[in-house]
């Protein structure tokens, strides 16, 4: 790596915004990896569209984080010049695409959350975050619909698609708890009405997810042991590999444009 990482002054609002920006960028990047590899052309486009929605969300959130921080960073520096330990995304979103069932279950778990989350955030006392939430909510609502339809068809499809969908649910379940956590840094923002308490969304999320999973003749795991660490920069082995690809161009040719 030819270019050193930047340092970021993570005040609570900067950290909060970076966490959401990293969620959108990392999941968007994972979906972009499907481009040209989806099981059919129509789904290739659908996955790329969702990836582009998320990339758009990431850009707005990074730009806002840079503005709030006010240290001369910008969206590109925040995306391309932070190392793996500086990334704050949910562990769920960096998990590899795996088979199509894994890609869809990951999308389903997150979209069911993001749809509720952004809808609630439309009432944020921070006007920029409220505006980003209003745009993101419409996109997330479609991601949820699309992934839900696939979960039903995979689960209630063939023996093989059912088994793969169930395996994906079982594998990714332990990464869902992190979505509903809020640390001390975020508590202040919640109390100030800038953000909302994600834990308050879990009952509705669970209902949405359980309804679809039941219709799909699949089952949710009983285990409530949950992975955590992504919000603090402790990631699975997969994120470093993802970032090395995502960042290689800007690290090698700083500021390159085309």
């Amino acid at each position, binding site marked *: 790596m030819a270019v050193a990482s930047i340092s970021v002054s993570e005040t609570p609002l900067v950290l909060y915004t970076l966490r959401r920006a990293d969620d959108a960028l990392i999941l968007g990047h994972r979906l972009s990896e499907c481009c040209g590899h989806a099981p*059919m*052309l*129509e*789904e290739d*486009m659908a996955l790329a569209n969702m990836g582009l929605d998320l990339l758009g969300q990431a850009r707005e959130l990074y730009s806002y984080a840079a503005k709030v921080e006010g240290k001369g960073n910008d969206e590109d520096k925040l995306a391309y010049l932070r190392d793996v330990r500086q990334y704050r995304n949910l562990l769920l979103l960096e998990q590899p695409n795996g088979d199509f069932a894994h890609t869809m279950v990951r999308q389903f778990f997150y979209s069911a959350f993001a749809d509720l989350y952004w809808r609630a955030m439309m009432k944020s006392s921070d006007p920029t975050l409220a505006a980003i939430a209003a745009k993101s909510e419409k996109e997330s609502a479609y991601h949820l619909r699309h992934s839900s*339809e696939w979960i039903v*068809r995979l689960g209630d499809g063939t023996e093989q698609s059912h088994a793969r969908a169930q395996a994906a649910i079982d594998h990714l379940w332990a990464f869902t708890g992190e979505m509903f956590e809020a640390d001390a840094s975020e508590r202040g923002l919640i109390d100030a009405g800038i953000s909302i308490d994600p834990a308050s969304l879990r009952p509705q999320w669970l209902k949405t997810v359980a309804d679809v999973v039941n219709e799909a003749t699949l089952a949710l795991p009983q285990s409530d042991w949950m992975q955590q660490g992504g919000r603090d920069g402790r990631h699975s082995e997969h994120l470093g590999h993802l970032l090395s690809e995502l960042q290689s161009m800007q690290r090698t040719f700083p500021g390159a444009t085309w």
Partner: protein
Amino acid sequence: MPKNAGTGKWRKLPNRIEGTVMATPNTPLWEVFIRSRNGLAHKHVGSLHASDATMALQNARDLYTRRGEGLSIWVVPSNAITASDPAEKGMMFEPAESKIYRHPTFYEVPDEVGHM
């Protein structure tokens, strides 16, 4: 149904599920119609593969409305469309060619009428 349906004079569009060309096996083909603005008719824009009507609608949204093309989408199973036979275009369409009096421009409108 057209009068000649079933006699071989009218043909169904090829059903690509049963046909030999199956780029995406067992996935039916759908025709997509988009209405771009209120007041306009839905217009055929292309086709796609989808397992059922719900997915066809979603795929149509993802394939054909990426640049703000539409306000409304219809999807129709391709094999539900009955098409005229191109080989019969003489019988079908040539008789109309000589009936120029069916065009409004055939008639001279007196100046007194003004704008119609």
